[in-house]
């Protein structure tokens, strides 16, 4: 097909229009990004916690911001929440900013803060208890997390899970598709619904059996593992109350619910006040 002079002019006009459109769009986004600049005061000692907005039933539908915030409250580190859908350099949320330094990943954030503020929530633990604390932390965050994520995003309707209304349904569903892919690679996603529930039950049983009648995992003082367990269990105990996992805890592992109330009353006395209206 041979282009006439008229065709070429039309193409040039179209290309020009597209170029102008792209420039206008980029300029508008740049202006929007500038408006949405986050309110850090890098000269202060405040720790900024960047996380998605509050839920109506739980302070966050994600376990990690709750873990991080609970740690900050126990350690009495001054912090300020920044509710935004701004992801870290690792593509995840929450993350923190302190004195101009961004630290992604809740566990690296805690290690950083331990150093900065000379905190050690495990100082009262023996060497063996510290080891067990790490094991429970990893079981909860690298195993139980995936079992519960598969339930929330793949087996059940994610819209029931108390996500803030600023996150549109299509974004939740898209995220759910991504979780399905991730879960396949991680391994949990290859199991059946019943198998995943069985795995969840064994994890609950382990936490419940280790906790026993104790106030916290290792006695009367909480540690980082308690924060992680709390952040994860509140999703079942207070958020997804309709789930079979909630029924399982109520019928077979009631000390897990008791633990959630203990942590909530001790470190989140403002729980009801801070939830989204």
């Amino acid at each position, binding site marked *: 097909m041979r282009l006439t002079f008229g065709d070429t002019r039309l193409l040039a006009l179209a290309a020009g229009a597209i170029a102008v459109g792209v420039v206008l769009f980029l300029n508008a986004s740049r202006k929007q990004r500038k408006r949405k600049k986050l309110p850090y005061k890098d000269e202060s000692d405040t720790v900024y916690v960047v996380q998605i907005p509050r839920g109506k039933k739980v302070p966050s539908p994600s376990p990690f911001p709750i873990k991080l915030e609970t740690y900050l409250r126990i350690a009495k580190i001054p912090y300020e929440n920044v509710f935004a859908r701004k992801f870290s350099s690792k593509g*995840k949320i929450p993350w923190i900013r302190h004195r101009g330094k961004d630290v992604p990943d809740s566990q690296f954030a805690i290690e950083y803060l331990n150093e900065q503020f000379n905190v050690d929530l495990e100082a009262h633990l023996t060497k*063996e208890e510290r080891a*067990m604390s*790490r094991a429970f932390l*990893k079981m909860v965050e690298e195993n139980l997390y*995936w079992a519960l994520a598969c339930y929330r995003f793949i087996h059940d309707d994610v819209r029931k899970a108390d996500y803030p209304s600023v996150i549109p349904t299509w974004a939740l569903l898209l995220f759910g598709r991504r979780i399905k892919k991730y879960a396949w*690679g991680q391994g949990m996603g290859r*199991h059946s619904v019943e198998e995943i529930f069985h795995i969840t039950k064994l994890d609950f049983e*382990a936490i419940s059996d280790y906790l*026993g009648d104790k106030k916290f995992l290792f006695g009367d003082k909480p540690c980082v593992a308690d924060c992680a367990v709390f952040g994860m269990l509140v999703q079942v105990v207070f958020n997804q109350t309709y789930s079979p996992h909630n029924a399982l805890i109520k019928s077979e592992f009631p000390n897990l619910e008791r633990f959630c109330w203990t942590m909530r009353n001790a470190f989140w006395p403002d729980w009801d006040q801070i939830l989204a209206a």
Partner: protein
Amino acid sequence: MGLRGSKPTFDDSSNVVYFIQIPLRGLRVPNLSPFPLKLETYLRMAKIPHESIMISTLSSKGKTPWIRHRGKDVADSQFCIEYLNKQFGVNLNEHLTKEQQAVSRAILKMVEENLYWVLVCYRWFFMNPKDMGLSQNIPSLIFAFIRRRVRKYANGQGMGRHSQEEIFHIGKLDLQALSNYLGEKKFLFGDQPSETDCSVFGMLAQFVFSNIESPHCALIKKEFPNLERYCHTMRNTFWPDWDQVLKGDASSTKL
């Protein structure tokens, strides 16, 4: 070596457990994957008669190892153990208290869902491919192809988003926890081995015996020597034929 290999013939009327593992016999470990090593150690510990078959057929879940028993295929090493415990009336955790069983599960998951990814990231992203520890090097095109898929999985799981130093640090904390919990004990929970010892051994053997060039191996030798001592204890107890297994051919071995 295609991953959809041929299906072997099984005698489904016998009580023999067919243990199918991917043919990744290492120069220094019976299998480069920690899970076949875990499951085979369990079979030896529980004294369950089994026949080991090394073929590239993956399980219904696309993984290794898997078993076949009386016509039933079971995928996933942990589900295999739960199945075999029931079928053969085995309970390697019987002597543990409730709290110890809880800790046993936590350690199992730390090792298989966290330390495992440290190993994977090391082998596929940071290690020189020539150090894989196989009798033949993986052709670079195949290595690159596999690495791409591993990177996708590791990024999804999370470990792949960290830097090399961060991943090493995470591994160090896991190894430190294992070392501190083991202490002077012969096995994780005392003088008698238990189920989780199979998994911990399967994973640590990769660092201690196979990837001897790795910074993790150097770390263990320098800071956590009881983990190396533990690996030798497990090896001497349950794999007295370790050297023969390594030297022998890659086809079935009857026990």
